[in-house]
């Protein structure tokens, strides 16, 4: 029953890479107190888990609650461990695997959005082309002079990736991204 576990160069037996690695999005509701983010990040680095994206902000001011959204990769076994390990942290209220929840609800995948600020500097044709493409992506111009634009773009991470790739030859100079915010469809709360 444990045939998938292979010995590695240590006392521990870790799932081999032949197991299917999945990307999941976790929502973690925590008390907004000093050090709580360090506890979450320390858990991931200390136990060798991956973080692909991490977003945190206070969501319920009066109750001092913050929501951390983590996109992580691992086998089903590792993902379950991550959830349980997060639940052990004292200021953690709830951990919901939004990806698992979405499939339980029959929704496919959770809604995920990211905001990016993208600075593009240039003159002439490149500048015109950048503005035209930004319009096609529904990016907003939030700052500009004759030599640059700053675009604000919201969408799935893949859309942001694509926009950045397109801007590269057109004078891309700076990128700032928020990381993923995520939520499931339907009337139910987390």
């Amino acid at each position: 029953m444990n045939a998938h576990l292979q010995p590695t160069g240590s006392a521990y037996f870790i799932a081999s890479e032949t197991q299917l690695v999945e990307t999941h999005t976790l929502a973690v509701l925590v008390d907004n107190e000093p050090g709580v983010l360090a506890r979450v990040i320390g858990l991931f680095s200390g136990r060798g888990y991956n973080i692909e994206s991490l977003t945190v902000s206070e969501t319920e001011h009066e109750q001092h609650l913050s929501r951390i959204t983590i996109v992580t990769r691992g086998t089903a076994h590792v993902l379950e461990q991550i959830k349980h390990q997060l639940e052990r942290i004292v200021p953690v209220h709830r951990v919901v695997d939004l990806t698992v929840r979405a499939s339980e609800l029959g929704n496919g995948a959770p809604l995920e959005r990211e905001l990016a600020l993208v600075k593009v500097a240039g003159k002439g044709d490149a500048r015109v082309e950048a503005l035209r493409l930004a319009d096609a992506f529904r990016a907003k111009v939030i700052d500009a002079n004759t030599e640059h634009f700053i675009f604000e773009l919201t969408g799935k991470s893949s859309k942001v990736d694509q926009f950045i790739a397109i801007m590269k030859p057109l004078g891309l100079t700076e990128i700032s991204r928020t990381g993923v915010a995520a939520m499931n469809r339907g009337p139910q709360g987390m």
Partner: protein
Amino acid sequence: MTEETNERNEMTGAEIVVRALRDNGVEHLFGYPGGAVLPIYDELFQQDDIQHILVRHEQGAGHAAEGYARSTGKAGVFLVTSGPGATNAVTPLQDALMDSIPLVCLTGQVPTSLIGSDAFQECDTVGITRPCTKHNWLVKDVNDLAATIHEAFHVATTGRPGPVVVDIPKDVQFAKGTYVTPQTAPRKSYHPNVQGDLQKIKAAVEMLASAKKPIIYSGGGIINSGPDASALLRELVELTGFPITSTLMGLGAYPASGKNWLGMLGMHGSYEANMAMHDCDVMLCLGARFDDRITGRINAFSPGSKKIHIDIDPSSINKNVHVDIGILGDVGLVLEDMVRLWRAGTKHDKKSLYPWWEQIAKWRARDSFAYKNSNDVIMPQYAIERLYQLTKDRDTYITTEVGQHQMWAAQHFHFNEPKRWMTSGGLGTMGYGLPAALGVQIAHPDALVIDIAGDASVQMTMQEMSAAVQYEAPIKIFILNNQYMGMVRQWQQLLHGNRLSHSYTEAMPDFVLMAQAFGAHGIRCEKPGDLDDAIQEMIDVKKPVLFDCRVANLANCFPMIPSGKAHNEMLLPDEATDEAVANAIDAKGRELV
């Protein structure tokens, strides 16, 4: 104190600390003073409710608090200063985390205005101790101090117990604030599940009733759950007639004298326990965590069995080994339900287990803890056997260091009650046993407390003999002295062509003279014929004792599951020739520890 006269409970932070300890039932506090905790020490000086035990090194304070906690079931409490005081506390904190021991560690910190300035004796205590505690707090406002300390005790002692740290800057200790009494309502995010899911427990009982080759594998969780859990475990074993084995941490929960006892399992466990684990059809794991020392090669671990796992920590279930039924809860409460359901009409014929017990008897007949005794030299196993025989009728507590002596103690000293056996299991901390014995003795002043030690381990925290002398704690340090780091040497023989790199202590101190230097009593014994009298002298002396027991230098600890091997591939003592030892571990297993 002045609580009646001062209704507003205004007091300094240092007073709050002492009052909060008292209100949480603390009677003994292990510690070491320093600049950043002086206000608290000043308060301790002016009261008599809490006895402070001055250690010689902060690591000693932590291990003493662990010994205190393991032998009483209460939280062990220790107080250290900032910077080096806090960093020295890290080893016992991690030790307690891995063995689920409730510890409350109070650390001094530089004043809040200096935090982050690289001040004298400053370190990022909450940062350093974050991964080695269950939770930790930096208290920046004196008005949060009392509630934080109360919460610290609550977190340390409930759910899966563990160590916590409360870091208190010096200005907070001086500042005046309001004291609040221990809260009954803890924070919302912390709510350990203690009651097991009844449907799953029913399914588990049905699975157990259908077993033809069952085994119960119990662990430290039974001890942590309390005396009721041990009593219920004994009742369940009696009701079902199942064989039972235990981890190192769980020894004593089921009595070693019990007829269903198979001995400890795991790397140096008994042949019958490991073979029964390998061949069983239903395994009931109670408060243990499928540690790598227990499972051996994990893809060959008990391949044909259905597994039931009861644990209070959800992350322990399905972590190393996939189980068929995982029940989250306090093992004592779950056992209560199991026993009740079993009694309520489970149809199970003990006779159906006869073939299984016959098989176990065959394994048992291999006598896997056997050793060849000698008239000329003391065999370490013999020394433990004699120690057991001469102390078994007394109120005895055993601690150990880490290494061969620890495994021999687990094999040859027999525990019939829980909380009598204090050893560093998960972290494997050499130097644990001597200060732990001090902690046990402080909690049980009239008991016989023995640290079964190795000559190398005992030198790591030897300084605490001085504390033992100061507090007239008559701990007995029984050193199995073979001049080697025996377990290191054993592995060098197994893995590294018998090249004994730095595992021999060429300049061994004279432990008898050392005892005298501390103001303790020293005994040396070199011949098997003198051993009983020497042990009796150790018991009778009303002082701390260093007992230098010179044992066979090259004895090794068997049986053994070599790294990378399965439970049914044990190396037994009668098979452990030099050649077998040299070839016991293949290339793959060499990478493991």
